Structures are given as structure tokens and as C-alpha cells.
């Protein structure tokens, strides 16, 4: 497996930022009421992640250790604001539904954690790939949770009606309690899968 493939497997499965590392849960819970919001947020966060990883990796030798976090945060905040304004200009509906959680991407632990753990210690290309992989992992987690919530609360996916009208619409799934519960279940499923594969590996040895 090439290093790039390994990085992708890492970001999507082994170290999925939301489902395994348990980072970035605030936006996951808040925007997973509909799939369009989830995908929009996922893409926005991925864009910021890639850009900030690239810049921080390029500047990594110049940033003094003491102001590391502050410097990272300035770079990330800059890209978040840029994405915010671009969304406001070219996708205003998405910008409205995501609301406050777009500027809150700056405190999405995933981005700061990857800057600290990877971008500040690796080259530009590797960091860009890491940003893409982790961003895709985050988006995937968002999609899982949002699909379940939208399906159960409105019977639709991407606003296309999927379930027959007779299917009861569980309103609570679209509200905060449902968000917590669905996310908990999704992470539990992920953990079960990983436990099983770990047990298989251990038994196989």
C-alpha cells in the first residue's frame, strides 16, 4: 500500500477524526439535520483543512514554538473567514442554513489537531493529502449521521422523498436529542466493527 493510500485509509477509517478520534462533534451534531447541510459543512471544513495544512506546513520552519498555536489559529481563522465570505456570495442558501457553524469551523478541533500533529511536522504535499483524507473522513461521518437523521425525521434524502408517506416521521430525530443518540449509535457501530477486526487480528496471530 503506498503511503498515499495509507493516509486515506487512516483518515477514513483507522483514525476517522469524528468516529474514532472523537473530534469535531459540535458541528456534526448541529448540521446533521439534513444531508445537504452535512455535505456542505463537510466540504467547507475539508477546504479549510487542506488550505491551512498546506500553509502551516510551508511555514513550519519559520514559526517559533512558543506562538505555535496562536499562529496556527490565525492561519485557520483566515481561511475560515475566506470560505465564509465565498459561501455567502456564491451559496447563500447553504450559508444561511449552516449559520454560525461556518465561523465555528475555526474551533473545529480536527483542523487544529491535524495542524499540530501532522502539518507542522511534514512536507507540503503530504500535509495536503492528510487534509484531504481527514476532511473526507469527517464528511463521511457527517453523511452517516445526517442520512439517518434526515431519513427518520422527514423521510427524505437530499430533500428527495425516499420513504413512503405511511412511514412515521420521528420528529425527535431532527432535534438535539436525536442528534446525540444517532451519533452515539453510529460511533458504537464503528467501535464494534473495529473491535471485531482487532479480535480477528489478535486471533489470527
Amino acid at each position, binding site marked *: 500500500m503506498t503511503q498515499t493510500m495509507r493516509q486515506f485509509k487512516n483518515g477514513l477509517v483507522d483514525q476517522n477524526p469524528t468516529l474514532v478520534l472523537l473530534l469535531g462533534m459540535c458541528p456534526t451534531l448541529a448540521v446533521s439535520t439534513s444531508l445537504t447541510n452535512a455535505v456542505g459543512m463537510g466540504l467547507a471544513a475539508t477546504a479549510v483543512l487542506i488550505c491551512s495544512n498546506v500553509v502551516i506546513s510551508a511555514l513550519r520552519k519559520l514559526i*517559533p514554538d512558543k506562538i505555535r498555536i*496562536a*499562529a496556527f489559529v*490565525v492561519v485557520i481563522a483566515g481561511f475560515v473567514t475566506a470560505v465564509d*465570505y465565498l459561501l455567502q456570495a456564491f451559496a447563500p442558501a447553504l450559508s444561511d442554513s449552516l449559520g454560525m457553524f461556518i465561523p465555528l469551523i475555526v474551533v473545529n478541533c480536527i483542523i487544529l489537531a491535524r495542524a499540530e500533529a501532522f502539518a507542522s511536522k511534514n512536507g507540503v504535499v503530504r500535509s495536503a493529502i492528510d487534509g484531504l483524507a481527514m476532511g473526507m473522513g469527517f464528511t463521511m461521518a457527517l453523511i452517516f449521521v445526517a442520512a439517518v437523521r434526515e431519513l427518520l425525521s*422527514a423521510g427524505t434524502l437530499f430533500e428527495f422523498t425516499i420513504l413512503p408517506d405511511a412511514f412515521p416521521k420521528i420528529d425527535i430525530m431532527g432535534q438535539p436529542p436525536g442528534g446525540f443518540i444517532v451519533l452515539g449509535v453510529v460511533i458504537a457501530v464503528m467501535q464494534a466493527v473495529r473491535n471485531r477486526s482487532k479480535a480477528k487480528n489478535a486471533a489470527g496471530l
Partner: protein
Amino acid sequence: MNEDFAEAAEPREPVSGVTEPASEPSGEPVPDEPVTGSGPDGAPPKPPYKKLPDLKGVMMRTGPFLNAAGKGLRAAVRVTAAVLRVIWRILCAIGRFLHRVFRKDSIPNLILVLALLTAVTAAGLGVIYTVTGPQIEAARAEAFDAAMGEVFPGLELAFVKSSFGENVYEGRDADGNLAGFSILVSPDGYSGPIGMIVGVDLRREVTGVTVVSQRETRGFDAKGTMQNGFLEQFAGKNGPFALGNGIDAISGATISSEAVTQGVNDALALLDREIQP
């Protein structure tokens, strides 16, 4: 003729007056002396040939200038070189000083890096802000007109604040004629205020009602649309409205239905108050 030819065949002696000193070989071939027809008698033949440029004379005259200029130039170069060397030394000293002050972990360097980063970020964001600014304004205006115009189905209106208070907007069609009013109201619902827009035409009839924000737990589906076509019941009517009197509440959502009905009444009352004081 034969005589001339014979003379011409004899080796000639150099004519005085045009002496070529042996030590200065000229680069130019000496033009042949044309036969003039006059022999050794009489004055030496006048030279109708081309005159040589007086190179020697030129060089004799300009030589001193050139020497002086050369010396001056060399002096100038030496001085310039010396000055440049001094400047270079000063720059190196400054560089060393800065390098010592702005060591990687020193306080001035911390401040410098952070300030530079913030400045570059500010510049970049300023550019993006200026570039996307007009587009954002246009998108907002479009969304505003669309939202306000939802209560006037089938018409394309532009909305401006009216002189009747900050919650009443005038809707004008493409020719600038007033078509109606969009009124913003927020009655208190079950779980908080319900943001509504009520459209009223010039006959004081309700053209439409939409809900833009609510946190109700019943009466609205997951997309925020009020159920059972509740809002359509107001269109074309004059008011005042009351549940049970031509307006059917949504079953199980009485409080929300009551709130919305009250909102429509509030809007009409607001319009009445402002237009006919």
C-alpha cells in the same frame, strides 16, 4: 602618346609634399598618382586625390583628453567600490544585529511573526471581502425580495422600506407602481416567537402568509412548512381572523395556530394604524 606611355612606365620618384614617413605605415593604400601629363619640369603635380583624414592630428589633439578621462574614470570606480564596500559592511552588521534580536524564540521575533501573519491574513481577507462584497449584497437583495415576495404569488416585486415604520415594506412592480405591502410580525408561539410575513394588497386583502422562523414543536413539518395548508386559509380575505370563524386550527397545534392567526391580525392592525392615522 608614346612618350607619355614611356614616362609612365618609368619608376616614379615620390612627390614631395605628401611624405609618408616610413615609421608610420598608413593603413590606407596610397592612391596611385594619376598621370598628369606634366613631367619633372614645373611645380609638383597638384594632388587631386582624396585627402586622408588627419588621424594623427586627431589623435594628437584628443589624446590628452582621453588620458585625463581615463584617469578620472578609474578614480571614480575606485571611490564607488570603496563606498559600496562600506555600505555592504553596514548592512551585514545590521543583519547580524537583527538576527540576534529576532532569534527564533526571542520575544521580538514572536511578535514579528505573529504580526506579519496577521497582517498578511488581513490583507488577503480584505481582498476577498472587496471582491465578494457586491456579490453578497446582490444575493441578499435577491433573497430579501424573494422572501418578501413569497406572499405575493405570481408577481415579481421589489421591496423597499416604507415610510410606515420599520416592519412594513412596500412592494413595487417593474413599472414602479405600488402593488401591496409586506408586513413583518412576530407573535409569540408555543416555544418562542414566530417570525411571519403577511402580504396585503391595495384592497386591504391578505394575499399570502409565510412563516420565516419558528421553533414550534407541532404544526410544522421538518422543513418548517406549516401543515395542512393552514396558511392558505388567509388568502383573499379581509380579516379580522379568528380560529373557528372561517379559520380551522391544526389539530394538536392549537397554540401555534392561534399565534399565527393573531400575527395576521396584528399585521392588518399595524397597516391600518400607519396608513390611516
